[in-house]
């Protein structure tokens, strides 16, 4: 009986966390769409800062990871495929690996590591210091001023970083690993462009935006669940990272299954 009780309470806990995440996304989107003009100058400042921190400041680390991934994948392909007579598959495999899967995932992991932790710990600390109450008594809605710009800013940044990651991995990978080998740049690019259809672009965009929204929502809701003790802040940050990672891998699997297995593409 105890096992069922424990399982039940774990399931209820998971369901509550999930509903908190989806309601945070819903509140943020409705705040953006229906309360756009409320305090728009102040909230736009917060949004810009979030995009600057999450997107712009992540460019160096994203560039390194994308370049290294591009080099690894292309080196492996150029060492295996020519022996099998499968050079024409280079474009297909790069699109499958970089555009469909690894690009959106790795960009999201960098966003979680850099910004998700910062969002959760910052909001947790603000809550303990009663700064949310201070905003409320000034007539400022903390969801509209603090949560919405962070969720939307994270989504915009993840989308842009994913696109940037994919371009750097494909172009940089060729320049560092493929240049001088028995494949010209024009053949390399035409192979990639020939393998990339509208579906690949739609899936990559969909994944990056969903990942960004979910990371923003998981991290803000973790931060806002902090009670009154400062020791809850690192716990909330850990939960935010684990929750975001779990969520993006599950969403990735769902989207891949939906688009590429069910459709047989």
């Amino acid at each position: 009986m105890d096992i069922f009780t424990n399982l039940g309470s774990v399931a209820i806990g998971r369901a509550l966390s999930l509903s908190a995440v989806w309601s945070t996304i819903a509140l943020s989107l409705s705040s953006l769409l229906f309360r756009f003009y409320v305090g728009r100058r102040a909230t736009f400042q917060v949004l810009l800062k979030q995009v600057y921190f999450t997107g712009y400041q992540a460019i160096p680390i994203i560039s390194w990871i994308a370049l290294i991934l591009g080099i690894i994948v292309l080196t492996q392909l150029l060492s295996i495929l020519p022996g099998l007579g499968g050079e024409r598959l280079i474009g297909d495999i790069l699109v499958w690996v970089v555009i469909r899967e690894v690009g959106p995932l790795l960009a999201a992991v960098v966003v979680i590591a850099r910004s998700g932790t910062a969002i959760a710990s910052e909001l947790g600390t603000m809550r303990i210091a009663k700064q949310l109450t201070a905003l409320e008594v000034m007539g400022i809605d903390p969801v509209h001023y603090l949560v919405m710009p962070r969720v939307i800013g994270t989504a915009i940044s993840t989308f842009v970083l994913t696109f940037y990651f994919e371009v750097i991995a494909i172009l940089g990978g060729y320049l560092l690993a493929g240049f001088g080998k028995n494949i010209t740049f024009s053949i390399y690019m035409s192979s990639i462009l020939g393998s990339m259809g509208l579906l690949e672009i739609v899936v990559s965009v969909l994944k990056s935006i969903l990942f960004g929204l979910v990371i923003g929502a998981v991290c803000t809701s973790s931060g806002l669940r902090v009670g009154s003790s400062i020791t809850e802040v690192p716990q909330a940050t850990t939960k935010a990272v684990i929750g975001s990672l779990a969520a993006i891998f599950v969403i990735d699997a769902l989207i891949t299954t939906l688009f590429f297995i069910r459709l047989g593409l």
Partner: protein
Amino acid sequence: MAVLVELKNTSCLSDDGIKVIESATSSFSSGQRVVITASNDTAANNLVGLIAGIVPPVAGSIRLFGKDVSTLDFDVLAELRTRVGFLFHDSVLVSNLKVIENVALPLIYHSELTYEKGMERAQKLLDLAGYRGEVWALPGPLPLHVRKKVCVARALALAPQVVVCENIASGLAHDEAMLLTELLVEYQERRAGDRLLIMTVDNSSDAVLVKPDRRLRFEGSHLVE
């Protein structure tokens, strides 16, 4: 004189469930300067929290500009809160905004002022409150008396009709306390028939600085005139 703040048999509990305000009944009108002596910090803090709508009453009601704050939705309450300047004892500032941005925040959020105009107004308010530090510093390391100056500047940013202030003198040197109290009294006197100033103090000697029209005090959990 219009009644701006009204308590009717209002009771509330502290965080640990003790009744700190019991059946308080009083009304405060425009043009008044009111001092409430509360030797118990929790009662003063809860009274300001009740008026701000962040402490829910367990009995009775609290009306701000004629509206029961415990029944209002956030947007209506937010509109009322822009007409009141609240100063809490702990003087909380938003930690990721610079000092000047803290003061400009209500201006930029609630009005059509541009960012630059908001900053100009905020600078003037900081000068008025006697702030002499770096306006582009983060507020984290500021001592309490400096944070209080910034909070006074922020509370007056939207030119509120009502100012509710919790123990402004507490933790300050006499000169600092006098400066801020005089600033608030001057602010109320500038449109004396229209503005209401409610200040809680923890001892009656602080009340002298305010030159109040009305004095109330907490006897235990009871508010008496």
